[in-house]
């Protein structure tokens, strides 16, 4: 009995300590975020910012954009935009139209095609979405582009990256205890780790399957053929596993065949009689 009491009190003490610690991390996390946001949005009142910070994923939209902007800037440091204004405008039109069908139609969505022969696409919080020239070159029509962008839009609206960022950053803060002398951008940078590594991190498999389901629904709502994303996945599934251009994509995502399998289970019955456009003629062909 005594032993049990002893064990219990130790457990309670441990719990109290860890609660106190995580509270500290969260405070620190909030403070860093707040500083970053206030650099950008001066007129935002303290109270509004602070109250928006409460809750598990209680990061305000402004804070989310600040984080996403930093990640996007880093990603563009690794691979610059394809210098083709017609292409970039086209992708923004398609992406914005698809994003308008989501529950975050008023976010200032940004889309870009970046210079890389890899086949991949990336999403950063706040609506920054990029796909590589390598992936774009595989696409055959506008519906396929809509499907690919829809998958990334899915990550943004469900805040998949923000969630893992928040979890890992809290842990990271405990170890380092951020220096007070560094500037605004540097502070946000501290939160997101090195460069744009956050976009190379694997999400939970279910987050990827969820983003696929969101993609086909947003494409459907936007008037496109819902089966365009599956078509792209089939193509990507044909790549050899040891092909360097899909190495990172295959490492961070379930195999396309598994994604197709999951989509088949829910799409066949519900979407078999839903027709949509592919818009082959309007598709912007990228200059080689």
């Amino acid at each position: 009995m005594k032993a049990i009491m002893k064990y219990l009190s130790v457990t309670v003490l441990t719990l109290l300590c860890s609660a106190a610690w995580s509270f500290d991390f969260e405070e620190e996390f909030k403070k860093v975020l707040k500083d970053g946001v206030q650099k950008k949005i001066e007129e935002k009142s303290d109270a509004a910012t602070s109250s928006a910070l409460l809750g598990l994923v209680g990061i305000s939209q402004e804070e989310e954009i600040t984080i996403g902007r930093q990640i996007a800037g880093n990603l563009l440091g690794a691979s610059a935009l394809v210098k083709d204004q017609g292409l970039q405008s086209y992708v923004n039109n398609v992406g914005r139209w698809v994003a308008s069908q989501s529950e975050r139609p008023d976010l200032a969505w940004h889309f870009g095609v970046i210079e890389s022969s890899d086949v991949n696409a990336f999403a950063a919080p706040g609506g920054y979405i990029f796909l590589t020239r390598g992936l774009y070159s595989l696409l055959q029509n506008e519906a396929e582009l809509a499907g690919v962008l829809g998958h990334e839009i899915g990550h943004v609206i469900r805040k998949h990256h923000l969630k893992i960022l928040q979890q890992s950053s809290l842990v990271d803060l405990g170890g380092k205890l951020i220096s007070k002398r560094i500037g605004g951008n540097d502070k946000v940078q501290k939160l997101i780790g090195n460069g744009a590594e956050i976009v190379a991190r694997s999400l939970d498999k279910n987050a990827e399957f969820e983003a696929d389901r969101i993609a086909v629904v947003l494409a459907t709502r936007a008037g496109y053929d819902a089966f365009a994303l599956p078509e792209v996945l089939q193509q990507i599934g044909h790549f050899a596993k040891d092909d360097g251009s899909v190495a990172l994509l295959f490492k961070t995502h379930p195999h396309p065949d598994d994604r197709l399998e999951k989509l088949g289970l829910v799409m066949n019955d519900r979407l078999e009689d839903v027709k949509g456009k592919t818009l082959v003629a309007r598709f912007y062909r990228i200059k080689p």
Partner: protein
Amino acid sequence: MNLIKLGAALFALLVMPAFAAEIGNVIRADGIKVEPFRDAKTIAMLSVGDKVEIVKKNGGWLQIKSPKGKGWVHMLNVRKGDMRKDSGDLGGLLGMASGRAGTGKIVATTGIRGLDEVELQSAKYNETELNLVESYTINRAEAQVFATQGKLVARKFDYLPSPDVSPE
């Protein structure tokens, strides 16, 4: 180097006809329908593992030919080709050397590099490129105009449930 590329490209062209008639494997039992619609008449049943020849795609349907009959099956019940390469074959090497990727489509012919984890980790913030991508931003009203030009009409459609929690 250019000769190697040319050789690889020629080789790829030579082996292309072998892939011209695309073969698919049935991964879920499905009925062959006379039209690409749910209520169309079913003329035969395909079993898992059956091979079919893919004629064309229409939305979620593939027109196929098989010894059991000719008609339409759900696209997602057929896995295209048996080209899932695991490792150690020539496909990847050829793909990289020629800019082809085993799909019969040119991925990139210029010497653009990839984008791996190391590059992403060491990436340095580029404000100029960030401002450039933000300058391309389209607002909601502009996107609506773009959609109308393409005769795209927004429609309601519920999110799909996770297959893992739906009752079988």
